[in-house]
């Protein structure tokens, strides 16, 4: 079993011997990993190694890709998410996702946040919804910047604000897990710092998995790091140890910038 993780509580999500195929091509090979509530886990690895693919299997976004196929077990609170009895729409509300490119809806800032709670019936009244929108925007660190223009289009915000809006949109439906796929790769350093700060604040409240291309970012925001290479999970452990004392040569080569 994976070492370092303290087995205090059962993991929020666990993947066991997961294989993912696109048609005949295998993108993920026999990956087993756990995501728990207390730690932010970072997925690192060179381009094309399958980080996004693996992340997308965790909320079944890969279902939408023609020819994608998943083998193995992935559980959320012990329930297999690929079981036919699992409702995929509800799963995606429980396991939220933030994408690489900020993708707010071409609707008002308010409606961007309110959309999820509306379709899941989380608010009984307009006042309820107002409270949900405000608290989501506050937790996304965006409230002070947009509180006077909630009616403006979400697409009129800057890239960094858009990405925080997307994070706010994800947390407005009170998910249990948040998956982020290179959320800062399209942002400037200041906006990136804001998102990283936000991840710090969200930690503990949600189980968070983040894919990143940026070693320093992985070191800054995560407590656990998983290193992928060519579809396999090469090494998985406490972030500080992976960065100071990697066990595998491939990990060492990667984090010292030998390839990427």
């Amino acid at each position, binding site marked *: 079993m994976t070492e370092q993780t303290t087995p205090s509580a059962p993991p929020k999500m666990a993947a066991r011997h997961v294989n993912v195929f696109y048609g005949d091509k295998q993108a993920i090979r026999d990956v087993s990993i756990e995501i728990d509530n207390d730690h932010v886990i970072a997925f690192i690895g060179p381009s094309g190694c399958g980080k996004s693919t693996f992340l997308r299997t965790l*909320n079944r*976004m890969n279902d*939408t890709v*023609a020819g994608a196929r998943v083998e193995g077990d992935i559980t959320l609170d012990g329930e297999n998410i690929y079981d036919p009895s699992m409702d995929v*729409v*509800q*799963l*995606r*509300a*429980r396991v*939220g*996702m*933030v*994408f690489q*490119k900020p*993708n*707010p*809806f*071409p*609707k008002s800032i308010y409606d961007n946040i309110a*959309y*999820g709670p509306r*379709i*899941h019936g989380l608010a009984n009244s307009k006042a309820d919804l107002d409270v949900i929108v405000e608290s989501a925007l506050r937790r996304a660190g965006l409230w002070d910047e947009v509180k006077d223009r909630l009616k403006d*289009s979400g*697409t009129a915000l800057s890239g960094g604000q858009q990405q925080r809006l*997307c994070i706010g*949109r*994800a947390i*407005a*439906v009170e998910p249990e897990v948040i998956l982020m796929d290179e959320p800062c790769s399209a942002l400037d350093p200041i906006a990136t710092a804001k998102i990283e700060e936000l991840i710090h604040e969200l930690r503990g409240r949600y189980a968070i998995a983040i894919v990143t291309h940026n070693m320093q970012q992985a070191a800054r925001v995560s407590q656990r790091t998983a290193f992928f290479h060519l579809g396999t999970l090469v090494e998985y452990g406490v972030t500080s140890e992976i960065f100071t004392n990697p066990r595998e040569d491939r990990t060492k080569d990667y984090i010292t910038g030998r390839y990427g």
Partner: protein
Amino acid sequence: MTSPPPDETLTRRIPTDWKGQAMQRRIAARYRAERRFRLIGLASILLSAGFLAFLLVSMLGNGLSGFTRTEIAVKFDFPRAPMVVDPAMLEGGNADQVLAGANLPVVTAQAANAALGEGGDALISSNAWLTVRDAIRDDPSILQREAVLSLPASADIDLAAKSQGTAQAEAAYARLKQGGHVSRAINMPFLTASDATDPTQVGIWGAFKGSLLTMLVTLLLSFPVGVLAALYLEEYAPRNRWTDMIEVSINNLAAVPSIIFGLLGLAVFLNMMHLPRSAPLVGGLTMALMTMPVIVIAGRNAIKAVPPSIRDAALGIGASPVQVVFHHVLPLALPGIMTGTIIGMARALGETAPLLMIGMRAFIASPPGGVTDPATVLPVQIFLWSDEISKGFVEKTSAAIIVLLLFLLGMNSIAIYLRNKFEKRW
């Protein structure tokens, strides 16, 4: 000889002379190409604009006079006229019936002869008594006194007034003019009446209403079906041989000549389903068959153009596929779908051939009351009038074309308004 090692070629590389003659020539050539392209583009725009201007000018030139008519002032001395009408009978709704039996045609002819000299009754329209009837109905008090009414001129005089008549008619018109009898007025009946055999009596309203009803049936049928088909094909249907075949068939359907849809309508709607002949319902159904593929193709393209990131975003917070489609994809694709719809509808509005096949070419003298009443449509009406021998129909044909163009303009304006309203930018 082997080629020199790479680093040697690097050192021998001649720096680009950005200011050299060859470069200057290249720049000049680029500017020339730029100018040439602009000129060609401008020329094509001017050419299309020229054709459009020619069409409009010739239509307006020929057709505007169709909206006016020549009227001849005739004095009536009702108390002395050979008619008996009890003004009390004119109260209530059946004034028209009472007046129809009141010998008005004779009264009118006599008044014309008295006012304009012998043969005066030939100078006014044979239906001029209808104008007299309307005048009495609107104001029964004129039966107690003398009144001067403006009556529509006969087709010959009307043509002569527009300098297209025979020498004889021109002479008669000149005499009338000298006597100060004639005037020019807006031809209201043209906008409110239906087809007739006399060109001074025809109206466009019947065909206009027929077109309106036909388009309504077409839109109500082809828009929802076309949009749903496009959504299903884009968002739900698996990609396989069957959907490929459906795609090819739909593309083919959009290019099938319209006459074939007419034959199909004839065979299916009239012969098999026994729907009423000449009705806007059948016309609309036939047009819907023709318009649907256009909407499906435009719709699919518009749906494809919705960025996948929006679908991901919605799916990622737990929207169901139907919610993704109706909350996000459809609203964003709607402007494009509407553009396609309006192109299809404009084509349907101008179609003649398939409607001839299902019997919408009949002579219909009253506007349709509903979608199952016999009717004709604007392009068919234009076709029928252009086929008439009487010269008076020439300007009516052009006037009808102007009405058709205005209809089209109205339809397109609504579409552009809706598109701008729904268009979102991101």
